[in-house]
């Protein structure tokens, strides 16, 4: 049953129902037909009997024996008559034709007829219906009757018995029934065909839906049901809902995939960033260790030389002690620079933001470094425009300016010029990191200059240019610290230079807003976190 599929199952159930219905209808038709056929036959036989009695009244009345024999014989040979018998009032046979042997009455009065009693008869040859007519003498007075010795009164003088075969009637019934059989069969087949077609229309979308569901489960999320989406019934609605659901799953899935892709990319990027950071940190650490060991090496070497070797020459002894002294200073500068950078990196620096005129700061820085410049025979020209009010940490900004001027003095030959100036600038610098009004401070020298490659790296930690002699005062961190300070203020620092044509270091600081100027009554301290 399960193998038949839904269409087969529906057809099977329909066939069963139709078969049962057919049996019921046939049985009902049979009983109806039987009644009709029987009634009609009974009426006809009754009419024939009455007619025969009427037509042969005289013969019957006068009991012409030979004539009666002949008439009964003729009568019994009619088409639908099985046998005919005539008996007198004492039930003694008068005449009989074709009466089957051993005929016995099995049921009396099986039908109510006005002129005859109908009994059901049994014999070896089959069942019969027997019509018993009372033949009344007619057209003869009582005297005449008495004279002919006929029975008087209303008693029937003779009994006419006409038998018809029940099988004849049943044959008629079944003939009528069989005549309708092709019609019934045709109707049943038609019903089954219509039923199957309809079932197929309903089932096909369900089958497609099953295939689509399997495809979706297997990963083909674009799978949809093509059949039955335009059906106006529940199956159509089911198909449409299924397709909507599949589309939604597809959408959600691709959304999810997209999200996963984005997230993975973001995580990979973050991871790469962290790895790069880690590499940089570890590189930085090994550089730091190298930078710290270098002055220590000189200190240790010269100290041991002084301890172990008998150096008579005062000048040499003095020189070695001086180197130890200088290298110790270098070491402590390096350590404080490293601490500075670490503090800025960790955001634990206290920034004392104040509003002030940057010209004052530049003048002050120049005055402080002037003795060094004079000793190196380098001219310092400080020409800032006045009225450039900025908001910044004064000490840190002065550290930047001093560092830039110090670098210029360090690398310039005697007789060079260093020009310090400050002006308004429309942007924060070449990278245009922020918008607003800025002050650009520049420190220009006529020194040896930097190559393009050096210009890009000069602010990196521990970067040293080709012209930098090791073992001098530099820590390699000065410009890196400058960049951190300037960037913290929202500005930029950069260098324009060419080999042999001097260098110009510039940095920007945001101009103080009116609000900030007004709020300058006290010193505000901010911590970068």
């Amino acid at each position, binding site marked *: 049953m399960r193998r038949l599929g839904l269409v087969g199952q529906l057809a099977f159930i329909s066939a069963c129902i139709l078969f049962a219905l057919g049996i019921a209808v046939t049985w009902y038709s049979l009983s109806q037909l039987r009644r009709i056929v029987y009634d009609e036959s009974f009426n006809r036989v009754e009419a024939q009997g009455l007619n025969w009695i009427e037509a042969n009244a005289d013969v019957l009345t006068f009991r012409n024996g030979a004539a009666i024999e002949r008439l009964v014989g003729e009568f019994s040979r009619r088409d639908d008559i099985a046998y005919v018998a005539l008996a007198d009032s004492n039930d003694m046979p008068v005449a009989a034709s074709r009466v089957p042997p051993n005929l016995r009455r099995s049921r009396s009065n099986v039908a109510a007829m006005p002129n005859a009693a109908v009994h059901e008869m049994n014999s070896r040859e089959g069942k019969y219906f027997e019509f018993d007519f009372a033949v009344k003498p007619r057209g003869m007075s009582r005297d005449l009757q008495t004279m002919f010795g006929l029975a008087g009164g209303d008693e029937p003088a003779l009994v006419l018995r006409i038998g018809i075969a029940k099988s004849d009637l049943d044959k008629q019934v079944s003939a009528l029934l069989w005549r309708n059989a092709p019609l019934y069969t045709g109707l049943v087949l038609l019903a089954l065909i219509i039923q199957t077609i309809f079932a197929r229309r309903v089932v096909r979308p369900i089958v497609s839906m099953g295939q689509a569901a399997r495809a979706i489960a297997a990963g083909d999320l674009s799978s949809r049901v093509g059949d039955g989406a335009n059906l106006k019934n529940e199956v159509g609605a089911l198909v449409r809902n299924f397709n909507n659901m599949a589309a939604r799953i597809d959408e959600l899935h691709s959304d999810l995939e997209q999200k996963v892709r984005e997230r993975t990319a973001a995580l990979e990027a973050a991871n790469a960033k962290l790895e790069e950071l880690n590499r940089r940190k570890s590189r930085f650490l090994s550089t730091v260790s*190298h930078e710290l060991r270098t002055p220590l090496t000189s200190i240790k070497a*010269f100290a041991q*030389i002084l301890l172990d070797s008998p150096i008579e020459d005062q000048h040499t002894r003095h020189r070695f002690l001086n180197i130890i002294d200088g290298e110790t200073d270098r070491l402590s500068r390096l350590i404080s620079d490293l601490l500075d950078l670490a503090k800025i990196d960790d955001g634990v620096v206290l920034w004392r933001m104040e509003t002030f005129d940057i010209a004052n700061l530049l003048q002050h820085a120049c005055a402080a470094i002037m003795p060094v410049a004079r000793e190196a025979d380098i001219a310092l020209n400080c020409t800032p425009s006045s009225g450039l009010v900025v908001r910044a940490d004064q000490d840190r900004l002065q550290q930047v300016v001093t560092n830039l001027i110090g670098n210029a003095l360090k690398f310039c030959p005697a007789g060079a010029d260093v020009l310090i100036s400050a002006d308004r600038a429309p942007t924060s610098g070449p990278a245009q990191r922020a918008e607003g009004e800025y002050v650009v401070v520049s420190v220009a020298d006529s020194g040896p200059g930097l190559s393009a490659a050096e210009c890009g790296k000069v602010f990196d930690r521990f970067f040293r240019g080709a012209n930098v*002699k*090791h073992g001098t005062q530099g820590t390699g961190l000065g410009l890196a610290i400058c960049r951190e300070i300037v960037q913290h203020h929202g500005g930029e620092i950069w260098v324009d230079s060419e080999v042999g044509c001097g260098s110009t270091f510039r940095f920007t600081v945001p101009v103080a807003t009116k609000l900030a100027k007004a709020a300058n009554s006290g010193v505000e301290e901010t911590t970068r976190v």
Partner: protein
Amino acid sequence: VFEKKVLICDDEPYILESVSFIVREEGYEVLTANDGQEGLNLLRSEKPDLVLLDVMMPGKTGFDVCREVKADETMRKTYVILLTAMGQDRDMEDGFQSGADEYMTKPFSPRSLRRRLHELLDEST
């Protein structure tokens, strides 16, 4: 007496000066170079008996120089002492991998340097 030649190669002038002083005090002839390339040139032309090599130098590193020395038939016999501020185990491995005979981390002890110089140079005579 024919003096043994020692080449000192370092980009730090004070280290160059102190090591030169020590080596000279021990009675060897001293050659100095400020970077790897200069050191290699002197190695080829002067054929020193021993070279004291700094590792982190601009241009050719001490490892590079050491590899070239040990790959060259004419210079292979030159003793190489790496003198470096890179003190991690991995760096030391890299040093011996490049063929160095000795690896000393900065800050080094001048006394042990003196001892090693004698061990390497006097034994071979």
